[in-house]
């Protein structure tokens, strides 16, 4: 008997529910991993965009009236 069986007994799962939960955990792991990766890439891109925007704003400088 494996850890999954013991978990199924603890949580009172039927075999289909246990299989679904195991599949769900796998999917969630993939989604979490992909989400984290995509989130970090997005942060880097947007961070660069943000800094470039600030630099552009600073380059315009205060205008004399």
């Amino acid at each position, binding site marked *: 008997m494996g850890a999954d069986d013991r978990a199924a007994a603890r949580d009172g799962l*039927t075999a289909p529910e246990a299989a679904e939960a195991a599949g769900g955990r796998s999917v969630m792991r993939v989604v979490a991993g992909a989400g*984290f990766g995509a*989130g970090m890439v997005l942060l880097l891109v947007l961070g660069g965009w943000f800094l470039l*925007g600030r630099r552009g704003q600073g380059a315009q400088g205060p205008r004399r009236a």
Partner: protein
Amino acid sequence: MSKIGVGVMGRLRTTVLAGAAALALAGTLPGAASAATAPPRPAPAYRGAEGAERIRGGPVSADAPLVAAGRAYADTIGPGERFYRLNLDDASSVYFSAVLQPPRGAEVGYGDGLEVEIMTKEGERCPNNPGRAGFGYDPVPLGAAAVRRLEEDAACQGAGVYFAKVTRTAAKDSDRGAWPVELLLQREPGLAVGNAPATAPGVWPSASPTLPGSEPVVRPGGTGFNDARALGSGVWRDDLWPGQTRFYRVPLDWGRQLGLGAELADARMTKPYGSAPGGLTVALYSPYRGLIEDKAVAYGGKQAGVTLPKTAPVAYENRFSDTGQVRGVRVAGWYYVAVTLGAKVAEFTEDASPVPLTLRMAVTGGPARAPAYGRA
């Protein structure tokens, strides 16, 4: 770009960044998504195995279709015999099970039941066959298993073609219709060190089990072996309708023993007195769906209960025992408990109210070392 445009873009960047950070964080949170739990519903008819293949057993062995290990099959069977062909190796024990699913309300008698055996192509029954199970008063799902046991110097050890014979026995006044039957062939690898018969333990702690008295937890049972609800040590609550069978499963590792009791509470009566012989039945099945033990008591709408004897510790050597109940606990795995409330109970209880069921389970003993199986 205008000042307003720059300001808007700045706010936009900040907002988008905050959102992206939240998105990135959400991906790392393990509890970000939680499964919704559906409320329990009354159990429907027997739930067949997922992806079971339709098959038509032969009336004679010459027309027997092949059954492969590890795959579930769905057939129907009337009173009589059906044959299936098995191609077995010489390195594993096999278990061929049949689960008969009579329709609700079908007429059954005490002599009715199911018999399963594995035989050679020469027509000889393999040792320790057939596996049998019989009906009591009610048409409930019934499992029986045949075995080809690896054992040095015994019959049925060679590789090749064997036949499984499934026989449904029925009295003349019993239901004659064809009923669904689920078939499953399971393999157990032989031992790496040879399969010489070992001595089964003659003595084990078989005293009446001490069952827990903790607060019950609701766990609705399943309709059969495929959707049986997992339970462990503890006290479990369910509700049963007359004529209903609920299935539960318990993990038993090597060396473990199961103590099990089932109780029915008072029902809402429609008559001052009632009696249903065999109104509460409890059956224990092995991981390969063979019947280990069953027990029934009458139920008259008042508190009633059944306690099964504590099983022997799960051990490989148990298969060589002379006692059927000990032979049944020979592999580690999911053991199944089927609890039936007799249909006759409906004659003196309210239709709208199920009868409260309490299961008390104690998994004790062990753990013990697993046998040294060879290559699967």
